């Protein structure tokens, strides 16, 4: 194993982890803040990719695709929260089931609208190149993903941890009724959180569509990854989601590179182990 191997594989893992962070941070937000186990989160990722794809086909603009994907899926999230999930507030299991129902419907709708063929989202020329450093070659696009994830992570951290809005969100989680009783517009807060979480997943979907592609089944393929990240890091903890996504990205990458025959275990066995030792994840609180 040369140094080159370790550097390149670490880079691969980091960039994959960065993509996972985009996906998982939204899940963690919805999950931690609203106690909703959103099994439709993978669908947001997939639908975001599809919307982005359609926009690129029409306009040729990758930026437009990012924006449109995020906005469109945020609207879907708003609709789901406003019209359906809100009625079940506090009923964890009912909400889980409902999001499964949505996930199934989204899966079928995507099939109906975009057909079952796999696609990749064409990238703008600026993101297509390769950055070389000596013998090492880093695809520009993967660097781009790392940059985006870092920016998103920083912005989220500032809002949630440093502002009154963040505290209001958490208050709404702790005691929804009483939060209203101190004047917090809980319905608006929930809606905002849900929209943001959905938009983040969609952003991940468009960006992921550039190198993982957009295809039916992507929804349920990425979902376990997102959950592993969030759980390993600890529910609703933003630092947890960051560490979790990096850990999972690296673990998955090195697992596949070094022990491909164990790849069905390299993700889940460590997760089971972590949870067995720390039943609330690395950063989670009971």
């Amino acid at each position: 194993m040369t140094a080159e191997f370790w550097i390149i594989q670490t880079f691969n893992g980091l960039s994959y982890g960065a993509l996972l962070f985009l996906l998982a941070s939204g899940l963690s937000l919805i999950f931690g803040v609203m106690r909703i186990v959103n099994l439709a989160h993978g669908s947001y990722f997939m639908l975001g990719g599809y919307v982005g794809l359609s926009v690129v086909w029409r306009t040729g603009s990758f930026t437009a695709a990012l924006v449109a994907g995020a906005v469109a899926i945020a609207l879907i999230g708003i609709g789901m929260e406003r019209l359906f999930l809100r009625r079940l507030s506090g009923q964890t299991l009912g909400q889980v089931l409902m999001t499964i129902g949505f996930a199934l419907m989204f899966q079928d709708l995507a099939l109906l609208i975009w057909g079952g063929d796999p696609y990749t989202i064409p990238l703008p020329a600026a993101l297509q190149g390769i950055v070389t450093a000596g013998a090492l070659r880093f695809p520009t696009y993967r660097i781009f993903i790392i940059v985006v994830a870092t920016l998103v992570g920083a912005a989220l951290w500032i809002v949630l941890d440093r502002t009154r809005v963040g505290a209001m969100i958490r208050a709404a989680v702790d005691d929804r009724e009483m939060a209203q009783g101190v004047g917090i517009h809980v319905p608006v807060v929930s809606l905002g959180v849900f929209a943001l979480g959905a938009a983040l997943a969609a952003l991940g979907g468009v960006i992921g569509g550039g190198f993982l592609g957009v295809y039916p089944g992507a929804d349920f393929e990425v979902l376990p990854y997102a959950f592993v990240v969030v759980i390993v890091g600890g529910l609703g903890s933003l630092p947890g989601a960051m560490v979790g996504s990096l850990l999972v990205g690296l673990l998955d990458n090195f697992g596949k590179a070094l022990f491909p025959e164990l790849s069905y275990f390299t993700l889940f066995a460590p997760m089971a182990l972590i949870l067995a030792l720390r039943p609330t994840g690395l950063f989670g609180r009971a």
Partner: protein
Amino acid sequence: AVPPTAHAQGGPIKIGLLAPLTGAASALGKDMLNGTELYLDGIGFQAAGRKVELIVEDTEGNTATALTKARKLVEQDKVHVLTGGLLASTGYALHPLAEAQRIPTTYPVMSSDDLTQRKPAKWVVRTGWNSSQSMHVFGEWVAKTLKYKRIVTIGLDYAFGWESVGGFQRTFEDNGGQVIQKIWTPLNTNDFAPFVTQIKREADAVFAVFFGRAALQFVKQYETAGLKGRVPLLGNGTTTDESVLPQMGDEALGIMTALHYSAALDNPANQKFAKAFEAKAGKIPSYYAETCYTNARWIVEAVKAIGGRVEDREALLAALRRVELRDFPRGPVSIDRWGNPVQNIYVRRVDKVGGKLQNSVIATFPAVSQFWKYDPDEYLKQPLYTRDHPPCPHC
């Protein structure tokens, strides 16, 4: 155990088709269905003076569901012929059902070698292909014509990948080549970077086995990693099958593969078929479409041969095994003793013609059997190709 009765003679001839219409493989299921319907449409759903009825069931790409649906087709709909299926496991699972129910069954898609080699079923006829069939041809051709000496193989880590790589490696090495690295990618991979970056740079070429979205992702990431211009890419037929080719970009140009079909095949039957298929489905036919079209015709030819008396199952089965035609879109086909087609294998290269990618045929090998040039009995004494067989002495 239903004897033919006058009463049954009156009803339609029922064909039960299992296809994945929902789930990740639904695009393939759609092609299967369109291909089948296209042929039956062409004959006005009439054969040997009887109406033909097609009953389609969704397998979700899941073998347990496929089994349940197969039971439904056989037990409730009382179909005369059972056909379809996508996954190898579905093939193995349907074998005992077909044998127990004594129901004539055809496999247009499922390609696992042993279905017609070490574990054939009396009641099952394969109208498609098997995984290593075209790869035997391709391995020899690559060694002899391209004269590559060292090759890295990379493929999906399950039976289809093993059998395709195995077939290629066997004839490639029999003809003087060396496989210097075998990389297996788990089925749940969508980021191929960890694998692509490991490919040994001293290779003359890379041989890849993928299908569906994995093919798309792999070819794309092969380019992104900067390998495309430097190490030529070869593959099995599904890697550039028309089910994914139109969604690929220039990164696919130049990839060479082998299969028993190409949508660009230049024969009248295929020209007619491809045109009709495009009119019906709005896209060029994949091998899934062709094989199901051919499969439908195959069944109808057998029905005709027995004068429409499909209630006589033994006769129908015998007829299915006797079909031998020269004008399928894929070319002439006959069937061997184990129930597998003997057919042309085409070596193809991805070219851009009229702004669109296509699999241009650059070499044709006629009447290739699943045992290639090997003696069937000797061949069958060897174990099935797996992850570790044939071994890799040069890795």
